[in-house]
């Protein structure tokens, strides 16, 4: 009961937030929603099923390009958004099929290579992707007379989809799939012993993670109204990885906290001009040195300290 109240208050705060925000902060919060959606996908793949993916920016980019290019063909946003996810998910399954036979640092490298290759395709195949100049003039959607063109309205659209993404991830984690993911993540051999077809579930975890990233990409393109290959490099994949590790892997709250830190951190620290990147790097090292389980642990401590038990299930 108290838990629902707590989340209700948070959602209410998020709903009235735009009233207090300037253009720019509104954009940053909107961007955070998009990144959380992508990070949730990576959390399913890596946090739960323990399969490293360093090509999440590729999935993200495929979603974004699907949106940008099909919108230009006059398709409807509402049709493209699921397609963004599906294309990315399919791509994830196609590369996962050969790649998932490997694990750990081999899988990490295969996915790095895939990210670099997709970046080059986006860069060079101008007939399809517009090349390095990217796709501009991306429009925002509307339903009937309700238009999401303005930044505030688009914020609300993102907020709704963001909450949906979180609920979907909670549902997946608690479903049969989620249990299988965790079983594989903890001990692949044992999971196989319990009759879980580990390869199929690994593939599924990869594809579902890619699906979330694709949807995130589909939301990202209209937010920026411009996309170019630079937004989907291997370094962006690293940022997603950093998000879930800093936040806390294998926890629903992990990607949310992580995305807030990674997207907003530089923005807050930007006051120190170019020095913020140093501070940011230093924080990464310190978290790894002294707070291995991610910042979620801080939240846990806090929760233990507050007598009324607020918060979600583990």
């Amino acid at each position, binding site marked *: 009961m108290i838990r629902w109240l707590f989340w209700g208050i948070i959602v209410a705060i998020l709903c009235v937030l735009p009233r207090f925000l300037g253009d720019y902060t509104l954009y940053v919060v909107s961007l955070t929603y998009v990144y959380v959606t992508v990070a949730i996908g990576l959390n399913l793949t890596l946090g739960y099923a323990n399969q*490293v993916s360093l090509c999440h920016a590729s999935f993200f980019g495929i979603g974004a390009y699907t949106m940008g290019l099909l919108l230009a063909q006059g398709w409807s946003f509402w049709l493209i958004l699921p397609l963004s996810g599906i294309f990315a998910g399919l791509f994830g399954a196609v590369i996962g099929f050969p790649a998932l036979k*490997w694990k750990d640092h081999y899988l990490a490298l295969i996915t790095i290579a895939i990210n*670099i290759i997709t970046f080059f395709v986006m860069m060079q195949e101008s007939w399809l992707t517009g090349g390095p100049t990217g796709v501009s003039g991306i429009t925002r959607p509307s339903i009937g007379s309700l238009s999401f063109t303005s930044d505030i309205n688009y914020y609300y659209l993102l907020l709704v989809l963001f909450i949906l993404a979180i609920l979907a991830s909670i549902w997946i984690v608690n479903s049969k799939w989620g249990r299988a993911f965790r079983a594989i993540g903890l001990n692949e051999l044992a999971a196989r012993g319990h009759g879980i077809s580990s390869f199929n579930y690994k593939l599924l975890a990869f594809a579902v993670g890619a699906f979330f990233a694709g949807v995130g990409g589909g939301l990202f393109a209209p937010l920026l109204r411009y996309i170019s290959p630079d937004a989907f490099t291997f370094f962006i994949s690293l940022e997603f990885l950093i998000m879930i590790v800093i936040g806390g892997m294998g926890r629903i709250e992990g990607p949310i906290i992580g995305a807030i830190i990674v997207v907003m951190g530089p923005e807050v620290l930007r006051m120190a001009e170019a020095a913020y990147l*140093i501070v940011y*790097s230093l924080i990464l090292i310190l978290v*790894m040195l002294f707070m291995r389980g991610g910042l979620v642990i801080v939240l846990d401590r806090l929760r233990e300290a507050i007598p009324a038990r607020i918060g979600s299930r583990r």
Partner: protein
Amino acid sequence: MANFIQLLIGGVSMGILYGVVAIGFVLLWQTSQTINFGQGELVMVPMFLMVALHIVLKIPFWPSFVLTLLGSGIMGYLFERLMIRKLLPGGVLVIVIATLGLSGFLRYGMQIAWTPQTLFFPHLFSTKPIELGDIIFSPEDIWNIVLISVIIIVLHLCIKRTKLGMAMQAVAQSRETAELMGINVRHIITLVFVLNSVLAGTAAVFAAPIFFVRYDIGIFLGVKAFVAAIIGGFNQIRGALVGGLTVGLAETFAAAYITTAYRDAFVMILLLVVLLIKPEGIVGIKEEAY
């Protein structure tokens, strides 16, 4: 034919440079299961050190070189003592992320502490081209190939023949058994980190005249060396060398005969092909054998 030989020299002279940085990757992985994403920065920092000593302070080449290697060694020592030792129990992913942080810290630190500009570095060898019939090549490339080869051979002999080298191999093959022998594994790991940094420092001095000196060169070198180490075989020193040469030659020949537009992508495709056909790398040994 002349064309082919020239491409060969170009590819090898780049490849051997990637190779020597990749050897460090392999040493770290073998002895401590560390994947160091800050490897490129371990090359970048000595480059700046060399500029500071040789060009700014006008110290002659050889003393600067020795001091640079000394500085590199100290950097490697601190890297292991202050970071890696605490991180090792956390596993590969924790180290990957922390070394990413380190890489950013050194890179942007150098940019702010010194300069975002690219700094000049003179050629180390004569630049007068040598002509042999149709083939034209530069003494710089030849010297780089020869000297780096010598360094690698000496390193190889040290590891194969000396007592410390044997201890390093022992730690790489089984840490606990090495301890049974009375080998101080911690010291060996520290030593390997120092050795890795010194190698990277050496690579820096050879790379500086080719790349010039800039704060963000580490990303480029680090990724190339990483790929080289995987392609060649992550658990073999000769694997790093083979990988480096493969990467250098592949990008040169692909750029010359297919297209330059996908130059860096070719290397990645090669990486995928190698991983799918022979995941332990060209000359690597299956890890299951351990």
